[in-house]
């Protein structure tokens, strides 16, 4: 065995070792970044599990006197967050109803007219929208809807504020998804004599469905936990309310209210746990859809 191979052998071992250390450090750091999530979940579960019963989902939030009595007797606080759940469903649902069609149309326009001047302007505005602080969107909802339309705080105003908030994610995911679809697909449809609008509706959008849906769900999960815009729009309500022109509660609003009432403080944990699980669930389903519905071309 000559000297040069011996040296390179040693060097090789050193390199492999370095490689190993590096990999392990990376795994460790990756693990570290996951730790906060598990700590939060653990914390919420430990403190909140006692409140999680059937009533939690089907009863309205307790008033402060009931809660005080229960806490004094070392019982669990009666009532639940039904008004928040119903409110969140209505507000987020309505926001989606506004933002999803608008966002998909807008994203499709941007993908189809990638180089156009007007498209550039729209893209710029959407990017700016992404950066608008959520409280400012609350102000917008207040100015546009609370004052002129519903003459008072309302679920509708909250929906409008949140719909603006979820728009950019839908527009951009639609645009990015459609831009990836090979142009030959459109040619195939056009060469069969299919009119342009049908090509978009029946070929292009269905082909991009998984990417578009992923963007939609991420948009929903982004707004489901928002509090600030709702404070200036939906305001909150102690009872279940299904009238969209009336003030409405929402789960994140309830968390804020619980925090502000010393007697209800124990409800924070369960309500937060519910919200967190809802959003985690949405994100996981977005991932699952992206994988399962992926169209292979």
């Amino acid at each position: 065995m000559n000297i040069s191979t011996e040296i390179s052998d040693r060097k090789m071992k050193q390199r492999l070792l370095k490689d190993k250390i590096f990999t392990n450090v990376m795994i460790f750091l990756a693990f570290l970044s996951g730790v906060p999530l598990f700590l939060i979940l653990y914390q919420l579960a430990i403190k909140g599990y006692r409140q999680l019963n059937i009533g939690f989902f089907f009863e309205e939030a307790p008033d402060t006197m009931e809660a005080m009595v229960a806490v004094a007797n070392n019982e669990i606080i009666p009532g639940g967050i039904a008004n928040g759940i119903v409110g969140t469903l209505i507000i987020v649902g309505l926001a989606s109803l506004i933002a999803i069609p608008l966002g998909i149309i807008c994203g499709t326009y941007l993908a189809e007219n990638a180089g156009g001047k007007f498209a550039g302007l729209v893209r710029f505005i959407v990017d700016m929208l992404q950066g608008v602080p959520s409280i400012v969107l609350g102000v917008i909802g207040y100015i546009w809807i609370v004052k002129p339309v519903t003459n008072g705080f309302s679920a509708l105003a909250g929906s409008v504020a949140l719909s603006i908030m979820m728009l950019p994610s839908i527009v951009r995911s639609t645009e990015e998804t459609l831009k990836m679809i090979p142009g030959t697909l459109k040619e195939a449809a056009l060469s069969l004599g299919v009119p342009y609008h049908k090509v978009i509706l029946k070929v292009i959008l269905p082909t991009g469905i998984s990417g578009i849906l992923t963007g939609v769900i991420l948009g929903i999960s982004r707004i489901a936990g928002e509090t600030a815009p709702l404070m200036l729009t939906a305001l909150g309500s102690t009872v279940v309310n299904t009238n969209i022109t009336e003030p409405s509660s929402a789960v994140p609003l309830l968390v804020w209210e619980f925090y502000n009432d010393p007697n209800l403080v124990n409800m924070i944990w369960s309500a937060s746990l519910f919200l967190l699980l809802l959003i985690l669930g949405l994100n996981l389903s977005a991932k699952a859809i992206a994988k399962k519905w992926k169209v292979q071309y």
Partner: protein
Amino acid sequence: MPTEQKYKENVVIKNPIENIESPVLKIDDLSVSYGGDKYAIQNVSAGIAKNKITAIMGPSGCGKSTLLRAINRMHELYPNTHNKGGVYLGNENIYELNPIQLRRKIGMVFQRPNPFPTMSIYDNVIAGFNLNGIRLKRSEKDEIVEKSLREVALWDEVKDALHNRGTFLSGGQQQRLCIARALAYTPDIILLDEPTSALDPIATSKIEDLLVKLKKDFTIVLVTHNMSQAARISDYSMFMYLGELVEYGKTKQMFTTPKDKRTEEYLTGKFG
């Protein structure tokens, strides 16, 4: 180099419409531009023979695809195109027809197989009907699907998997599926733009056999880079160079006694 000028005198065939017996399609002094006053093809005149295979050959960038796409107006997908001259299907100038109706009479197959990825094999074949909202009875659909897939010799390979996605097929099978999709609509003419250039030799020869069989029912215009392919399967050949139709005639004759020097040089591999 004044090659252009040198060869100009040699051009024999200038207006070959008369040379083709009973043309279904007449290209009349057609020039196509993608914008500005630069023309990708210039003053092309040619008749396309019914129930024959016509091959378009020439070096890259000479305008083969442009000419082919001008026949069913697919070149209009690019925003700034304009053209001079006309293309006549029967007695109608296709540029006065509705492009949507035109494309139902003149189908197209592309270089890369492009089945619709969201659709099953079955739905791909009848996509022309479904996407255009033409309602058919189940039995009619079944019949069209089977007939079209048999015509492209794909039926036996896929008859048990008709409801699987078309994108799971091999490249050659996908291309035959795309041909079946074009046929299902029973167009008069089928245009194919280098349909085998993305395929292996076995898949290629299957498609060549298929085209030869299909010409009894359809008129076929085929762009090809592959001279031996043109020699093997086409009845008529066009040679294009720098946007100009240099020579057009019976394939046999063109390959044995080309009339233009440039054709000869191309066929003998001096450029291209």
